[in-house]
């Protein structure tokens, strides 16, 4: 079962053996050299620290009982040094000596070996800890690389947002200019086309805003402007805004009657409902229907946007609110939501102390809902 040392073990920084008894050192060194490891030796704690500083080894075999500076002290100093603290330390002690194993681990040792040595045991432990150390190092490097990529992605998102918004602002503004000045001269049909284009460019702006908002909420940089607001009135504004893009779809509200007051950020709530309604419109057939229901229920209010669209397979229901949850569906040429709208909704509702979810059956339609506490937060 003996595996030869890898090239890295032979050419890398090697193993540092620290023991004040030259005979012990020789035995151990020969044993490991035979297996192909690169070995360095230090005959005192002081020299070991010096050697580690000069050329950090990939592992240290450290005798516990040494005059002047014992193994625990050496280990303590290694662990206190940011440059050296990651080097795994395996303690060595003779069977007849007393080794405080708890102390050995306490000062940062990863393992211990007792003399007389058994070659296989020593090598197994050395190999294990070298491998662990290598993997940890690799993991840390991958993590750093990932963070770098993540930062790059965020910067890229910001760049794209900036680059998209300028032309969008030009489109939106110019449509507005034409509608404002030529409204009377336009044939009603053409005016409708322009109004639709204007409404769609607003939705596009919303989508882009959602990306920004999700980024900010993730960074904890978005504050809520809380105030008393009437959910029914907010929802009515959303429905009025959706008039231009609903086509022939039937879009209506089922409210219990009077106003439903909550303590919330009205702008955010508006956008949550708008996202849910927009989403429903996109995934409902041209002659379909969408119902917005607001139902106070005990200490909370239940808001649901129901449609008779194609529904969402169960597998996607749970991930549809995740930032990259839609990607899974997209890869299979299926789309159940657009952009980061639903991710925004989830973060926004949760920031209000509420819950969000979806109930859906394929072929029958979907109901996206959220609950908000009725009493102040």
């Amino acid at each position: 079962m003996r595996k030869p040392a890898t090239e890295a073990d032979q050419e890398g920084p090697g193993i540092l053996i620290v023991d004040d008894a030259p005979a012990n050192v020789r035995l151990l060194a020969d044993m490991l050299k035979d297996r192909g490891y690169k070995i360095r030796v230090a005959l005192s704690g002081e020299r070991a620290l010096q050697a580690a500083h000069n050329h950090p080894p990939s592992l240290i075999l450290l005798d516990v009982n040494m005059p002047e500076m014992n193994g625990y002290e050496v280990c303590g100093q290694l662990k206190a040094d940011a440059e050296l603290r990651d080097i795994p330390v395996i303690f060595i002690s003779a069977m007849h000596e007393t080794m405080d194993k708890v102390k050995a681990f306490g000062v940062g040792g990863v393992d211990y070996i007792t003399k007389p040595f058994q070659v296989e045991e020593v090598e197994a432990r050395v190999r294990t800890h070298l491998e662990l150390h290598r993997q940890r190092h690799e993991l840390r490097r991958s993590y750093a690389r990932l963070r770098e990529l993540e930062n790059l992605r965020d910067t890229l998102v910001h760049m794209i947002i900036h680059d998209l918004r300028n032309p969008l602002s030009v489109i939106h503004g110019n449509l507005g200019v034409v509608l404002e000045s030529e409204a009377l001269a336009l044939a009603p049909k053409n005016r409708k086309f322009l109004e639709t284009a204007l409404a769609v460019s607003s939705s596009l702006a919303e989508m882009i805003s959602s990306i920004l908002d999700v980024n900010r909420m993730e960074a904890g940089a978005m504050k809520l402007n809380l105030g008393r607001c009437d959910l029914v009135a907010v929802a009515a504004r959303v429905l009025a805004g959706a008039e231009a893009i609903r086509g022939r779809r039937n879009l209506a509200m089922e409210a219990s009657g009077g106003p439903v007051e909550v303590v919330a950020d009205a702008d955010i709530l508006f956008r949550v409902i708008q996202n849910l309604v927009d989403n429903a419109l996109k995934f409902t057939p041209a002659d379909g229907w969408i119902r917005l229901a607001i139902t106070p229920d005990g200490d909370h209010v239940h808001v649901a946007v129901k449609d008779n669209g194609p529904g969402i397979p169960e597998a996607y229901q749970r991930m549809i609110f995740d930032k990259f949850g839609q990607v899974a569906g997209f890869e299979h040429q299926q789309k159940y939501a657009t952009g980061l709208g639903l991710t925004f909704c989830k973060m926004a509702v949760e920031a209000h102390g509420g819950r969000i979810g979806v109930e859906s059956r394929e072929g029958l339609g979907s109901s996206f809902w959220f609950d908000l506490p009725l009493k102040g937060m």
Partner: protein
Amino acid sequence: MSTLSPKVMLVDDDELHNEMLKTALERRGFVVCTESNATNALKTALGFKPDVVVCDIAMPGKSGRNVMQEFKAHRTTRDTPFIFLSSLVVKREEGKSADQHLMLAKPIDIIQLEQYIRECLKSD
């Protein structure tokens, strides 16, 4: 402030955006001048003498805030109010920014922009 039509200067490296806002504002009775090079903004302003500057935040070479600092440092333009436009804020962040300047998110709501300009003219 001029007794004639109020003068608005637009500073944005996006010329199409400048043109769009120029048309929209001219139709609302403003006299408008555009500058797509932030570095020339002060020079243009010294000639045009705007009552309000509407300025993009992120421009190549010089940021909108740098442009404003230049204006503040010059005797003639020291008190000219600024309204900033940004494609990196969202609608709900519009209004007065931390340093008390008005901020609008792109795409611009022209009615909101007109309202902001009028506010600036009033407090002038």
